[in-house]
């Protein structure tokens, strides 16, 4: 039987008879970056909480690093790093002292590596915790999640509140860990983040997995909203023949549309004219659910 970093079978959790997770079955291979995509309340964090034994499943089983996450919770948590969605930091100590406390709780942490991580995220360890911005709090959370070089890292909304430079550093760090054969499971509402760094993504909707997509598949099915402004009014007919264009609206010298997948044909057609401006936007999660999975926007 092949070794899996994470395996859940028919995992179900109900809170006060309201299902939060319904029959979730998934498998994560070693060295894989696995994404949990879904709107808030879709069951992503609940799954992570079950894996860490914060809550117990109503039905089903979860094996983390080959061990039952309930029966061997302590062993599992020794080998796993976790970044929570909401990190509460104590007052009256500096970020550096806090990291030392985390290291003492964990045991066997090389502080040089923790300092190196803090430096990579440009985290000022001299600052008192109460003066840290949300982004800096997030960085502390990330450093403590990675500092003991865990076999599996569980990240809940890792890039929330992070600036662009810190996000890039996070993606680099995840890539390095993946190259070392370690696995990452990350929950996020950002489809662009999932496309960029995940090998596979489980798409959650109301506690169920409605699809498991490869990162490349997600990219191919990605939808972008495009707005183009031309120097002169153009004939909209020339865009109508393109296969992957939807919701095309032309207004004098402006064109609005959505593109699914590769925008190459659209750009090549547009460059026949003088383009003054082009804006590309990622659609919201609701729009993706509606367009790709056929789930009405109001339902998410």
């Amino acid at each position, binding site marked *: 039987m092949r070794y899996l970093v994470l395996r859940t079978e028919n995992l179900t959790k109900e809170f006060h008879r309201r299902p939060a997770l319904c029959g979730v079955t998934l498998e994560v291979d070693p060295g894989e970056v696995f994404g949990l995509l879904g709107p808030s309340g879709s069951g992503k964090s609940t799954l992570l909480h079950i894996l860490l034994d*914060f809550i117990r499943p109503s039905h089903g089983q979860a094996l983390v690093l080959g061990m039952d996450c309930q029966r061997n919770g302590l062993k599992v948590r020794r080998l796993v790093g976790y970044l929570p969605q909401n990190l*509460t930091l104590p007052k009256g*100590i500096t970020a550096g002292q806090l990291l030392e406390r985390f290291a003492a*709780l964990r045991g066997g942490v090389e502080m040089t590596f923790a300092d190196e991580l803090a430096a990579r995220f440009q985290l000022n360890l001299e600052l008192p915790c109460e003066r840290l911005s949300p982004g800096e709090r997030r960085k502390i959370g990330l450093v403590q999640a990675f500092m003991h070089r865990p076999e599996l890292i569980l990240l809940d909304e890792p890039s929330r509140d992070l600036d662009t430079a810190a996000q890039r550093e996070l993606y680099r760090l995840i890539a390095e860990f993946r190259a070392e054969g370690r696995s990452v499971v990350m929950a996020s509402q950002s489809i662009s983040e999932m496309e960029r760094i995940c090998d596979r993504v489980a798409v959650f909707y109301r506690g169920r997995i409605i699809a498991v997509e490869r990162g490349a598949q997600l990219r191919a099915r990605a939808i972008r909203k495009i707005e183009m402004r031309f120097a002169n009014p153009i004939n909209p007919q020339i865009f109508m023949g393109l296969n992957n264009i939807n919701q095309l609206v032309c207004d004098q010298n402006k064109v609005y549309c959505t593109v699914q997948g590769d925008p190459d044909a659209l750009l090549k057609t547009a460059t026949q004219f003088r383009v003054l401006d082009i804006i590309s936007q990622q659609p919201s999660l609701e729009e993706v659910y509606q367009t790709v999975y056929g789930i009405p926007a109001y339902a998410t």
Partner: protein
Amino acid sequence: MRLDLLRDLWLERRRRFAFWCIMVVGWSGVCGLLFPVLVDEIWVEVVMDWFNPALDLQQGYWLVALPAVGLPVLGGSFAFLEGGSLFKGQTVRHAIAFLLAYPLPRWQVYFSRLAYLLSACFLLTVAGYLSGSGMILLTGYPLPTGLFGLLPGTFLLILLLGELGVLFGMLSKSFWLDRLAGIVFLFLVYLPFGMRSGSGWVRYSPLFYVLGESPLMGGVDVVNLLVLSLSCVAGGLAGGYVFERLELE
């Protein structure tokens, strides 16, 4: 139990504790200063008539000897609220969940919190007693016989209320409901004290187990203390059982 977790809790909650400590020390100090007046039989009778004419002199004495009665009330309120706040609220639950993401058994986290509650209750009781008795001594009046014999019972009673707060903190979702329950409970604890000592109801008051019917004369009642100690152990274990099964959503 982990000493580093205990230290962190003390650092985090030192201001709250200081506030309650000042209240208890102030209350006990003022009562100690007024003690010579309060133990004057005429004053005792005035207060007894106002409170409950059916009281016997010994009970009336304890009603006006406020440090002894006031300390469990103030200390009990502190313990109940503090015990609840150790496990209640989204921020606290997030902090506990985060700790449990580390390789720490649940019982270590629970007992560290219980140890904080125990040490806080003990310090509060001792501070109240020292303040009250210090002030009595300052007035030049001798300390009542057996006063310090009440210390272990008062401490255990306060701790028991704290453990009850812990259980409410873990089981109840409403802040206001458990506060109301705490107030009702404290009221019920002291209500029988306003009745005749011969009444069967007085035995429902935990204070009865601390003080006995003639506290200053009898000194420490070992049997009553044992009952209270066992109740504290049972309360602590019950809290641990609930925490072991607590879902940190």
